[in-house]
């Protein structure tokens, strides 16, 4: 019998599991967590209240919070997301981070009756957490400990029952590797060190089934809103609203490589009973939405179509941003042929482990990325490794190219590594090298500590400390570090001028904000669509044309703040960070105007309370200030730093020094200008109500959001 407490939207219960004592307790989600909404908000509140910020992130004393929100499982398109909140073991300051896991398990958590599951303590031996509605138990996991995530998920699913969903850590998490994740469905993951945080607690997996329901206050209106979103607003992946292939109804086609690659003649070539043509997918039709992304073609080009079985993705989502493949070539190497993933993990991540010249075509021109990339995705997922938005890969690639391993590894270790597999472009290279990282085998596995500690260990963060004279943070080319904290940019100034860079530096990991890149790279024309629509929201000058930037202004700052708050909202709601908000739409009839009030309409229909976007963004701003306050405290505790502006938010040189022949703010570059950047930071801090010298929230701002206790702590530490 499921937990039913008659609340609209929220499940109503926060579950707390103590692995040390085995105790299972429950508390009501509301009213306590209402100001934090759900998801990220609950996670941050729990960590703030209950985990001292000097706690070792991979320890018995640390906590890991799995949480979802009022919209999760409500039927809202693209709401199948679970937020996981923890302390970072690997980025400078060891501060708070959140990971975001897709697949289907978010629904199971809600249907079982929970808004959050707090993991505390440490089990004395490997266990998995089994939840079936109100039945919660810790089960023996010794039979899967040491095995990969795919085996674990398969065994536990068979053991628990067909309708259980499962998420597990792999050897990387068990071995407390910082660059680790948790895997669910087939290739969906939550990273940022989640694997290690759970491995340190001997928690191998969670298996969960729910027979309950998410209660909706106004189901008729809510169904209308869901249909409206899919029918009239949504485009392809990243809500790219214009198809790449000419379609008879489409007024524009994209010449920028965008994430709407489906079209006439683009095939799911490996569909079991005959290739399926993705055809036309007009705006205004629901039954075609799942064909738009056909993401494999974005990741690999047309040559991949023969391997695409179908598209896949998260619960409730019509976009299907994963491609699911059968790469039969891998059978020649006795490797699994069924693989699924998307974006960096599927392509540029794993292929970074080869020298470019070592990669050769297998059957068709250009297919090395497919064979090596997809096998690499499989290996990384099975090991439960995380690549830090490919900082891991970029670092490995740089070391490989510059003969760094030969210098830094003990000779015996260097000689033991089968480099010939890499040189031959053999997919089995990835099993070896990634296995070493996941099992902490040898000095080479230090790369699994994450950029910040890895550079430190090998002296790569200081040109005077290594024989290559390099500072990995500042170098131009092959480097995406957006701060000195150990994580790369994720759609920063290269897509979104100063606005993009501003929110990129705010987190303790690569940021999850896709709001800007979604319309910038949509394929819509800048002059006819992007500029007029965005200026109608935020005023003149809020957006720049690609590679033709202008100095900072108030409206760009307004836009930056809005994008920043949206991510906190989305990960609290929960909604997919890759899709929302509906800034643009795919509808020619709407002149491509989206609906940026839609999220509030969902909240109103689901909860039965009147919600506006202002209400939502106010809560999001509260959570944003928690992120900032916690970060300030962490930097003080771990690094003895008092000033976030000068440390946490410092931007590496390459962002300003790239394209040396082209001046900033002229056509042909996306580089930033140092003076303009300082001005941008100041304006952003002002907009957020933060001290402009330190970038730390003022007491006045914190108290506005009922975070007076955080102000007290900051004052105690001399930070405000």
């Amino acid at each position: 019998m499921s937990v039913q407490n008659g609340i609209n939207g929220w499940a109503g219960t926060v579950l707390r599991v103590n692995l040390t004592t085995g105790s299972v307790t429950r508390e009501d989600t509301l009213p306590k967590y209402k100001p934090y909404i759900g998801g990220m908000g609950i996670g941050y509140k729990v960590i703030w209240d209950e985990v001292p910020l000097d706690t070792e992130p991979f320890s018995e004393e640390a906590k890991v919070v799995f949480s979802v929100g009022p919209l999760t499982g409500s039927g809202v398109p693209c709401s199948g997301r679970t937020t996981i909140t923890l302390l970072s073991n690997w980025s400078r300051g060891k501060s708070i981070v959140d990971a975001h896991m897709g697949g289907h398990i978010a629904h199971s958590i809600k249907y079982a009756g929970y808004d959050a599951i707090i993991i505390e303590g440490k089990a004395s031996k490997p266990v998995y957490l089994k939840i079936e509605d109100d039945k919660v138990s810790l089960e023996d996991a010794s039979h899967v400990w040491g095995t990969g995530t795919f085996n674990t998920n398969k065994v536990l699913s068979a053991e628990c029952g067909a309708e259980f969903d499962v998420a597990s850590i792999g050897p990387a998490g068990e071995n407390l590797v910082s660059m680790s994740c948790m895997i669910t469905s087939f290739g969906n993951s939550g990273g940022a060190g989640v694997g290690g945080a759970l491995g340190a607690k001997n928690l191998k997996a969670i298996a969960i089934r729910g027979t309950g329901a998410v209660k909706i206050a106004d189901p008729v209106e809510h169904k209308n809103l869901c249909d409206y979103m899919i029918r009239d607003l949504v485009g392809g992946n990243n809500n790219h609203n214009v198809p790449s292939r000419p379609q008879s109804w489409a007024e524009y086609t994209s010449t920028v490589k965008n994430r709407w690659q489906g079209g006439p003649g683009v095939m799911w070539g490996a569909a079991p009973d005959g290739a399926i043509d993705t055809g036309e997918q007009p705006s205004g039709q629901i039954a075609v939405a799942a064909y738009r992304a056909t993401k494999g073609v974005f990741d690999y080009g047309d040559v991949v179509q023969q391997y695409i079985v179908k598209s896949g993705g998260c619960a409730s989502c019509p976009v299907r941003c994963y491609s699911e493949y059968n790469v039969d070539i891998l059978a020649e190497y006795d490797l699994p042929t069924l693989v699924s993933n998307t974006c960096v993990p599927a392509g540029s991540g794993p292929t970074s482990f080869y020298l470019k010249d070592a990669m050769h075509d297998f059957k068709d021109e250009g297919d090395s990325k497919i064979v090596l990339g997809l096998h690499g995705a499989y290996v990384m997922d099975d090991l439960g490794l995380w690549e830090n938005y490919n900082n891991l890969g970029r670092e490995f690639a740089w070391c490989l190219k510059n003969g760094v391993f030969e210098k830094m590894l003990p000779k015996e270790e260097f000689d033991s590594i089968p480099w010939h597999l890499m040189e031959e472009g053999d997919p089995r290279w990835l099993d070896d090298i990634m296995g070493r990282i996941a099992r902490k085998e040898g000095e080479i596995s230090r790369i699994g500590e994450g950029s910040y500690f890895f550079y430190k260990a090998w002296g790569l963060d200081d040109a005077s400390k290594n024989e290559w004279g390099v500072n990995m943070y500042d170098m131009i080319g092959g480097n995406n570090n957006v701060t000195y904290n150990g994580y790369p940019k994720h759609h920063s100034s290269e897509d979104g001028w100063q606005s993009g860079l501003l929110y990129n530096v705010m987190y303790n990991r690569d940021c999850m904000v896709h709001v800007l890149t979604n319309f910038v790279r949509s394929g819509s024309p800048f002059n006819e669509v992007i500029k007029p629509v965005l200026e109608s929201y935020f005023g003149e000058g809020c957006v720049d044309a690609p590679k033709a930037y202008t100095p900072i202004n108030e409206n760009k700052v307004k836009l930056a703040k809005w994008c920043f708050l949206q991510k906190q909202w989305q990960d609290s709601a929960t909604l997919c960070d890759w899709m929302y908000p509906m800034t643009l739409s795919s509808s020619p009839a709407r002149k491509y105007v989206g609906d940026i009030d839609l999220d509030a309409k969902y909240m109103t229909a689901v909860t039965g309370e009147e919600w506006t976007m202002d209400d939502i963004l106010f809560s999001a701003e509260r959570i944003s200030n928690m992120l900032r306050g916690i970060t300030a405290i962490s930097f003080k505790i771990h690094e003895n730093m008092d000033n976030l502006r000068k440390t946490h938010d410092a931007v590496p040189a390459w962002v300003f020094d790239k394209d040396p022949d082209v001046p900033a703010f002229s056509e042909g570059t996306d580089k930033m200008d140092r003076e303009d950047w300082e001005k941008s930071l100041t304006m952003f801090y002002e907009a957020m109500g933060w001290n402009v010298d330190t970038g730390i929230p003022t007491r006045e701002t914190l108290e506005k959001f009922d975070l007076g206790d955080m102000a007290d702590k900051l004052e105690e530490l001399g930070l405000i």
Partner: protein
Amino acid sequence: MSEEKRGFATKEVTRRQFLKISGVSLTGLVLSTPLLTLMGCTQKQVDDGSVTTWAFPQGLLVVNKDKCTGCQRCEINCTLVNDGCVSSYISRVKVTRNLFSGRNDTGLYSDNHFVYFPDTCRQCAEPACGSACPQGAIYADDSGVKKVDPEKCIGCGACVSACPWHMPTVNPVTNKSSKCVQCGACVAGCPSGALSIISWEEVAAASQAV
């Protein structure tokens, strides 16, 4: 080729032929190109069992396994429309049961990771659910759709046990059986056309095409 095997290649569409396409046994039936186009599939997909069809009042329900992408929106739409809440367990169309560890080693956690699809009510001519119901709560409406009368249902679960595919579910909140009423919400909301309905007029027209 026998008269039955020619199926829609003939101009005359007999009642028996219509009844035949109402079941699973499309295999071996040669379907006309217009009908295959309407169904959005190939003869191979029909012959290999990837495509199954069921008779709904609105038209022919076509379930195409190869097109299901596991989004679970069929369950979402079913319960949103029929129950005013969202759930997998009480959904009358069931995909989650096949999505993780389905039968015959299918589903994301099996070795056939990408084989998953929705199970739909078969609207049996002589429904086991109806026969098993001690209250006679399952009746056929004017269109022939088998429904549960909530006034009569006592939530005993006999229909669940009796159905060979366990399609009905007793709703733990209302304590009533929920079974498919062919409302078509699952079809209307499927973003990949894995579930689609072809109206009977279109089926007839395609069948009559020379």
